[in-house]
């Protein structure tokens, strides 16, 4: 019971804006530093150390950006849905802000995955775009992100807007698997997944390790970027509160 109580206390503490602002400020340089380190390491491993693919030649190396970006696009939508659920149930302001701030980052990653996929498709399939299942569902994910952002911008009161967006994100998350499988049955040209088969990945270890490093780097980038956005949003929303006034005083 004591443990549970201290966990709840920690949770509420972390969700309080001034506490989060201070803590995230402390963590931010480390997160971004670690990101830079892993990003360079992952790129070096992927672009220089990893062997050439026997079938796709050098062109396959774009996976070191494409695949992590595609993973992030789904991951961030999940984060949005989960924080949306939290903000609907417990009305946590921080959860709302995390959800809203995630949307543009997620949309950017989705866009990046689409662009890199298209660049990869040109030498491999000899066309910029095919109406293939995975490309299409990624495109639809981008539309879902656009819907979330449009709805948030359309509602003036930002707390109401966040609640509306939370509902939309939850509806979207129920629909994502349905959309995914419907599109899958509709058409498939994309190569099957090579990484998710964890028991025996069909990708060589020297190619896999840089990819995983890049995936971690992208996650750190997301967290760092998210922290920056959340901090700004917190300052804007709480501009009339005491802790912001204090912060301004100590800074000037």
């Amino acid at each position: 019971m004591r443990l549970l109580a201290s966990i709840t206390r920690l949770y509420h503490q972390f969700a309080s804006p001034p506490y989060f602002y201070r803590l995230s400020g402390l963590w931010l340089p480390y997160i971004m530093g670690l990101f830079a380190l892993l990003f360079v390491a992952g790129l070096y491993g992927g672009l220089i150390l990893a062997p050439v693919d026997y079938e796709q030649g050098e062109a396959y190396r774009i996976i070191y950006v494409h695949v992590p970006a595609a993973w992030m696009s789904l991951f961030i939508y999940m984060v949005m849905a989960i924080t949306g659920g939290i903000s609907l149930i417990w009305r946590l302001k921080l959860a709302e802000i995390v959800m809203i701030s995630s949307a543009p980052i997620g949309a950017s990653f989705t866009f990046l995955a689409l662009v890199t996929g298209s660049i990869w498709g040109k030498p491999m399939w000899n066309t910029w775009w095919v109406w293939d299942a995975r490309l299409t569902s990624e495109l639809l994910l981008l539309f879902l992100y656009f819907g979330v952002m449009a709805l948030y911008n359309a509602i003036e009161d930002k707390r109401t807007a966040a609640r509306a967006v939370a509902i939309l994100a939850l509806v979207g998350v129920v629909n994502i698997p349905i959309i995914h499988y419907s599109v899958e049955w509709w058409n498939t040209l994309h190569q099957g997944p090579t990484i998710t088969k964890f028991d025996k990945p069909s990708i060589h270890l020297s190619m896999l390790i840089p990819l995983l490093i890049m995936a971690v780097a992208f996650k750190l980038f997301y967290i760092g970027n998210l922290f920056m956005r959340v901090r700004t949003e917190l300052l804007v929303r709480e501009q009339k509160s005491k802790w912001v006034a204090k912060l301004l005083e100590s800074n000037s």
Partner: protein
Amino acid sequence: MLTAWTQIFKRDLLIAFRRRSEIIHPLIFFVMVISLFPLAIGDDKVLLQKIAPAIIWVTALLATMLSLDNLFRSDFEDGSLEQMTLLKTPLSFLVTAKITAHWFITGLPLILITPLLAVLLYLPVDTISMLLLTLLLGTPTLSLIGAVGIALTVGLRQGGVILSLLILPLYIPVLIFATLALQNTEQGFSAEAQLAMMLAILVLAITLSPFAIAAALKVSLN
């Protein structure tokens, strides 16, 4: 509980029959947009026959979305929606009455007029019956999913454009399965799998979307 449901259902039907334009306008839209396609493509029988299911389905999708606009609007504006939230009967249950009434007003006439349009697009008879079946299974799902979007945007001034951004991506599974079923029928295969999927999506929409609609309406009423 059931009396409140039937009251709302009857009331909505009555209002619709007093203001028939609400029933007729989406239908005219449906007919007009479909007749634009032969005009744009030319009187190419083979091509039209091939793309007719897609034309009819995409237009039905848009017509349903447009007709949804007045699902909650007048109730929202005159305050009766607020009264509904105060009833003992849960709002998530009551909205199903409104949606069912709305489907009878807009979805059903659309299905009834489709055979005529299908003939205009040179569809063979057995494809027409499959087309009607997919519309029968699909349009209630479209109404239910669309109602979530309309509940979120009912208080907004430029709700229409945003509504399409919100719900068109969610409409895609229905569109895909319906057109796949029609393709299969045209090629002489069975369309049972697609119809089963459409039914499954409908059941899922019936069970889950009322809760989302009620929550969204409460946010909009805030």
